[in-house]
């Protein structure tokens, strides 16, 4: 069955079914996420609240809904759970697709979206904004700008050295990552330990707790565009993974493709980091899981990764806000869950993974 999905003609039907199943599962987890939490809201009310929220957004008062829930229930669903769930879905998809695209582009399944330094750059940008004691909007803009600037620096280095091989790009990413770390150390030294330093550390841990609906609204379209772009390129990513020389010989303008992929992935990752802080492991593990289910062909794997990533992040978010009285930072959970899960996957797979 698995072989069929990865290979032949008959696999065509099977993998579409899997994709459909993943889509259904995504919807189900979404509903679950909005319905459960420490503050109990009856399921019927949840449905009504979400429906009213959507109906309110429509221009005419087309669907009158009777307000039969308490304001606290409304707050729980609309102000707390809904933005977090949407953010988790968007970020999970964004990071998975970006990671999968990079894994094709760098011909290496061990690559994560941060290989060109976008997360470390975003952290520096956010830290600088926090140092200036800017408000949260500036911190998020700073994170976004920092991430983009870091990648721009990384892509500049091959131009300066006049060597455009993929290895130089990876090394440039290491350089920029190291530079970001050093800058972060300096920032941490000068930051006021009681206030600014604590803020910086807190932000770095990654959390969906402070995501508001307007942030989702701002970042959502960017993520959707980025994911759509990479999905459109999914066949080209296959060709790209053959290597620069072969891809060129097959007619692909490798330089332009790279720019497009880096641009899309950077936008996706920078958007995610700017609203939620650094989140590790997702971009690395989810593409592997998708590959295990439908094979390495990006035409099948990439769409599945979009859903799988969303499901994973939503589950993580549910755990983050229901396990304990404190909001558990996201990175902690993705690490604790992601790493053994990854090990378990490697264990199960006896043949070569990819």
């Amino acid at each position, binding site marked *: 069955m698995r072989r069929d999905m990865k*290979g*032949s003609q008959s696999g065509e039907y099977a993998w579409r079914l899997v994709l459909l199943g993943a889509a259904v599962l995504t919807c189900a987890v979404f509903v679950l996420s909005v319905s459960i939490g420490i503050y109990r809201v009856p399921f019927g009310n949840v449905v009504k609240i979400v429906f009213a929220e959507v109906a309110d957004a429509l221009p005419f008062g087309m669907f009158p809904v009777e307000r039969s829930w308490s304001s606290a229930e409304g707050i729980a669903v609309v102000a707390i759970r809904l933005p977090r769930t949407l953010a988790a879905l968007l970020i999970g998809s964004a990071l998975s697709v970006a990671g999968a695209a990079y894994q094709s582009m760098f011909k*290496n399944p061990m690559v994560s979206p941060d290989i060109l330094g976008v997360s470390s750059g975003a952290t520096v940008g956010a830290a600088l904004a926090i140092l200036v004691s800017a408000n949260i909007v500036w911190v998020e803009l700073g994170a976004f700008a920092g991430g983009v600037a870091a990648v721009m620096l990384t892509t500049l280095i091959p131009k300066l050295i006049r060597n455009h091989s993929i290895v130089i790009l990876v090394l440039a990413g290491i350089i920029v990552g190291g530079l970001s770390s050093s800058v972060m150390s300096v920032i941490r030294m000068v930051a006021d330990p009681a206030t600014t330093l604590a803020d910086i550390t807190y932000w770095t841990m990654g959390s969906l707790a402070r995501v508001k609906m307007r942030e989702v609204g701002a970042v959502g379209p960017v993520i959707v565009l980025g994911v759509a772009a990479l999905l459109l*390129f999914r066949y080209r990513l296959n060709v790209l993974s053959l290597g620069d020389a072969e891809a*060129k010989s*097959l*007619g692909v303008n490798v330089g332009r493709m790279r720019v497009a992929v880096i641009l899309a992935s950077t936008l996706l990752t920078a958007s995610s980091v700017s609203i939620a802080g650094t989140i590790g492991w997702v971009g690395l593990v989810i593409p592997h899981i998708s590959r295990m289910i439908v094979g390495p062909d990006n035409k099948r794997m990439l769409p599945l990764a979009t859903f799988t990533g969303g499901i994973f992040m939503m589950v993580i978010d549910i755990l983050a806000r229901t396990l304990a009285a404190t909001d558990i930072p996201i990175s902690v959970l993705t690490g604790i869950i992601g790493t053994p899960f990854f090990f378990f996957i490697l264990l199960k797979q006896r043949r070569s993974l*990819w």
Partner: protein
Amino acid sequence: MVNAVLKVADLGFNYFKGPTIFSGVGFELRAGGVLTILGANGAGKSTLLNCIAGLARPKAGAVYLGGRDSAEMSFREVATFIGYVPQTHNPAYAYPVREYVVMGRTPYIGAFGSPRAGDYAVAEDALARLGVAHIMDKPYTEISGGERQLATIARAIAQEPKILLLDEPTAHLDYGNQMRAIRLIRSLAEEGYAVVLTTHVPDHPLFLGGEVAVFTRDKAVVVGAAEAVLTDELLTSLYGVPVKTVHVDGRRVCYAQ
């Protein structure tokens, strides 16, 4: 030459501030013609092939595909002309052979597109022509070296090119498969492709006939008809051991002492 599918004029190459690898190389090839690039290891054969394929930029000279300067053509257009078969292919991902071969259709698929049924048909046809249709659904990593070679050639054929470039096609094949590969190349030439290949085995150009470009010891490249250029003296000076050519069953073969 009229109807020269591939024309190379005065090609020269050196690495950034490095010594000249070759210079002044020129030849013309028609449909069905074969050019073998012969030389010792590291002489620069692959570099010359890469220059022809457009994967490396020559420092001097030009490559003309069907009369047009390849430097002015887009990667996509060049890919409809030239099918490039690399020496080794280390796969990062275990695509099934079918997917691997259909990637040859990329020049005909738009930037946002995916292969369609027609493209898969061409790919399967190419595999069938090479006699390896049975490996179609296997992952690329699970087939033998010879089958991988054939799959890559099938991919190049799927590009529906006019020219085939093969870099050391017999490099990782055993003795028997080497012969089969060379025979295949001859039959491909007979089908109408213009073929350029690199090799360090002198028997191959002797078998294939056609033209040869030899990277001699003194960095010069001698271009000409294989029969004429590959003399005993040239071969001896090229390899540093006494080489004689003898006729066996009407074929000229090399005999090194």
